[in-house]
Structure formats: structure tokens, C-alpha cells
């Protein structure tokens, strides 16, 4: 379970502290697929950085007994000047996993083929998204953090992601997005981040409606 308790974060802006998140409460249980909708600048990326452990909240607590992935998006955790294969080897080493197994799984899943020998910075957004997603499946995280992610892939890849996730019902997802399409594809519950607060909704439609009205 992943729990956020009264999480607040501010950043300096024009010489004073500007509160981005003003007390966020969120619980994600294994297998839950949560979407967080928000306009540009609503604090989605801040929230991802906090859950992802890149930064610490000013106050409040984040606790988790699930392993949480790095944000799977277009760039997350990948070194552009390294080849896809270098990245696979590096990540396998730090996660303590057999690199050749991971390599096999990833090249099979992503169908990147010879592109794995090219620097990641030459990849299209979709190719990076595929690589990041395949790696996260190979490392078997309990909770996937997805930052605008899978929308970058084509429909064939989106289907593969769906299938992979369907095989692991206990995998949780926290996805942030401002696009409703990718959220419909993967999530079953939605929150709307607005004015530094997280608004829970019981139905997806209610969330969309509220989202449509925020500024």
C-alpha cells in the first residue's frame, strides 16, 4: 500500500514560497489503477517527483511497502547519450537483476531490434516510452508511476501494455495526465488535482466533469 498523508510542497517564486501542493492525501492499494488529472502547472509533476522519491515533501509523510517504479514517460531514468542496451545493462546492475534475461525480455517486448544499439537520444518519444515500460515490467515493480506515458505508444503497443498489465492484476498504477484518452485506457479511478488539492471522485465521469470546469 502507498499512502500520502497531508503532503505539502512549496517552491520559491519571485522571492517568496509558492505552495504547489497544499496537503495531499492519497491511498493506493495493490492492483488499484489510479489516474490523477490536472491542468498544466497544477502540480502533477511535483506529485510524481515526490512519490518517485526524487524530492522530499516540506511536510507530511509518504509511506509505501510497495516497490515503486521510476516515472515511465518519455525520458524518465534513461541516459540519452547511452544506447538502449547500455541503459538496460546499467539498470539491471543497479536493480541487481541478471542483465541478459532483462535484455531478452525487453528486446522481445519493445520490438526495438537493432535500435537498441543506438543512443536513446535518437529514439522517438514512442520508442523511449516502450523501452521504459518494458524495463519496468522486467523489474517487476508493484506500483507503476506513469507520467503522460503510454499515450506515446501506438495502438499495437498500448494493447501489449494492457495485456502485460492484465497478467499481473496486483500491479498498481498511478498515472498523471491531462489527456483523458490514456486514462480511460488504463485506470479505474480518478482524482483531480486543482489549486494544490486532490479531489477524489467515485465515478470517472464526475471526475471528467469537474476537470472540465477547473482553471
Amino acid at each position, binding site marked *: 500500500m502507498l499512502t500520502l498523508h497531508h503532503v505539502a510542497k512549496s517552491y520559491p517564486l519571485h522571492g517568496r514560497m509558492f505552495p504547489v501542493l497544499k496537503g495531499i492525501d492519497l491511498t493506493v492499494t495493490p492492483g488499484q489503477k489510479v489516474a490523477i488529472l490536472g491542468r498544466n502547472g497544477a502540480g502533477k509533476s511535483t506529485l510524481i517527483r515526490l512519490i518517485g*522519491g*526524487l524530492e522530499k515533501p516540506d511536510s507530511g509523510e509518504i509511506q509505501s511497502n510497495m*516497490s515503486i517504479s521510476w516515472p515511465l514517460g518519455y525520458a524518465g531514468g534513461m541516459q540519452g547519450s*547511452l544506447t538502449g542496451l547500455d541503459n538496460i545493462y546499467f539498470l539491471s*546492475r543497479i*536493480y*541487481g537483476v541478471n542483465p541478459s534475461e532483462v535484455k531478452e525480455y525487453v528486446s522481445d517486448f519493445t520490438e526495438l531490434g537493432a535500435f537498441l544499439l543506438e543512443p536513446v537520444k535518437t529514439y522517438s518519444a514512442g520508442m523511449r516510452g516502450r523501452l521504459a515500460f518494458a524495463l519496468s515490467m522486467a523489474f517487476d515493480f508493484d506500483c507503476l508511476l506513469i507520467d503522460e506515458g503510454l499515450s506515446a505508444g501506438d495502438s499495437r503497443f498500448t494493447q501489449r501494455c494492457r495485456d502485460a498489465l492484465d497478467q499481473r492484476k496486483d500491479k498498481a498504477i498511478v498515472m498523471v495526465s491531462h489527456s483523458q484518452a490514456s486514462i480511460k485506457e488504463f485506470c479505474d479511478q480518478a482524482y483531480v488535482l486543482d489549486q494544490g488539492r486532490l479531489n477524489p471522485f467515485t465515478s470517472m465521469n464526475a471526475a471528467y466533469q469537474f476537470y472540465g470546469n477547473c482553471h
Partner: protein
Amino acid sequence: MPELITPTPQRKPFTQADFLHAATVQVRVIKALILREMITRFGRHNIGFLWMFVEPMMFSIGITILWTYMGGHAKGTIPVAGFALTGYSAIVAWRNSVGRTSSSIQANKALLYHRMVTIFDIAISRALLEWAAVSVSFVTLSILFTELGLMSLPVDPLQVVLGWVLLGWFVIAAGLIAVYLDERSEIFERVWHVAMYLTLPFTGAFTMVSWLPEAAQTILLYSPMVNAVEMLREGYFGVGINAKYSISYLVTCNIFLSGAALLLLQRVKKIITAD
């Protein structure tokens, strides 16, 4: 299936097994970071990894040639090549450690999303790699200069190793502190070049302490690096050069600086902001 990296729930007692596990993970991460750094920095183009050693070597060779023909620096029994090599290797170690370690976090911030990678891991792997590069360049050039008859082999190799390691400890600790300064303030990036230049007299590279007036000697010996370089040179050229240093002072400074570095790195996590 791959091993799961489960974050340890907070407030659980920390046992010896936990410690051993954490230590294994840390060593694994630092190794992987060093390998990765070698590929990103030096790549697979032309001479690749050799640049790592060739770069500091070019520096030392250039200075040695300059000093040999300009004279002025070495006195007495110390050969110019040996004097330049010991001095400039120390300076390059100092400059590279502070300059390159300090920028390591900015360049690798995205790695912090991987839970097992810490600020310390990123900084120390960069510092160790820089240190290793300068060390290899130092050893290679020592052999080369000896073969060319420009200097002789060290009088006391063990002392050379010890002096070099204590010097390394000092510059690595300083590099870690520089990481904090760099993250703390943008001014650091602007001033470090000139600041490093101004520290040159306190590196001990240009003169032996005993060649200076008494008052200057007292001041210079407060610099840990001067102590290390004096020790290194005594190991190379023998007690005849009248080196002045205190190992206990050097070690005390190093312990103090390392402690300060670890405490400051703890705070970096709170002040970094991702782009």
C-alpha cells in the same frame, strides 16, 4: 524472476543483516555508476577510455616541459621532471575532484528516481573515477620519465602510495563538500575556477615548505594538501629534501572533512529541485 527492491518500511529496527544488504546494494550501485560514467564520458569513439588517463597526462607532460626549460621551480637535489610530476599530478587531482564532482548531481539527477541510488553514490563514483584517472596518469608518467632517465624510481614506494592515498582522501572529501556548495548556490559555479586558481599556493606543488621563510612555513602547513604533497615528495626523493609534514594532522583534517561532507550531502536531498 528478478529480485524485488522493496523499500524498507520506516521505523523498523535496523539489524546487522539490513546493514550488510544495504552495503551490498551500495557497492553494486557505485560499481554500475562508475561503469556507466566511463561510457558516457569517454564513449567508444577513437581512443575511448584511454582519454581518461591521457587527458590528465597531457597536462602533467606540458607543465613538466615548461618547467624544465623555464627552470626556477626546483632546487637542490630534486629533478625538475620529478618535481613537476608530483606537483602537477596533485594539482590536477585537486582541481578535477572539486570541479567535476561538484557538477555530478546536476547531470545525473534523474537517476535519483531509482530508489537505491543516493546522492552520495553519484558523487562518490564521480570522485573515485576522477581519482583513478589521475592516479593511472601519475603512475604511467612516473614509469615513462624514469625510463627516459628524467628521474629515478621512488626511494620509498610505500610512502609514495600512502602519501598519494591520503592526498586522494583529502581531494575526494573536498569534492563531496563542493557538491553541497554547488547545489546550495549558483555562485559556486561562477567562482570555482578562480577560487581553485587562488588555492594554488596552498597546494604545495610549486615549492617545498623548507625553501620558504619561517612565517610562510607555519601558514602553509595548515593546508592538509601541503602536508600530503611534502610527504609524497619525501617518499619519492628521500629525506635529503627536508620535507615538512604531519601525518596525524593530515589524517585528522581528512576525518573532519569527510564527516562534514557526509553531513552536508544529507542536506542536498532537501535542496535539490528537479527541472
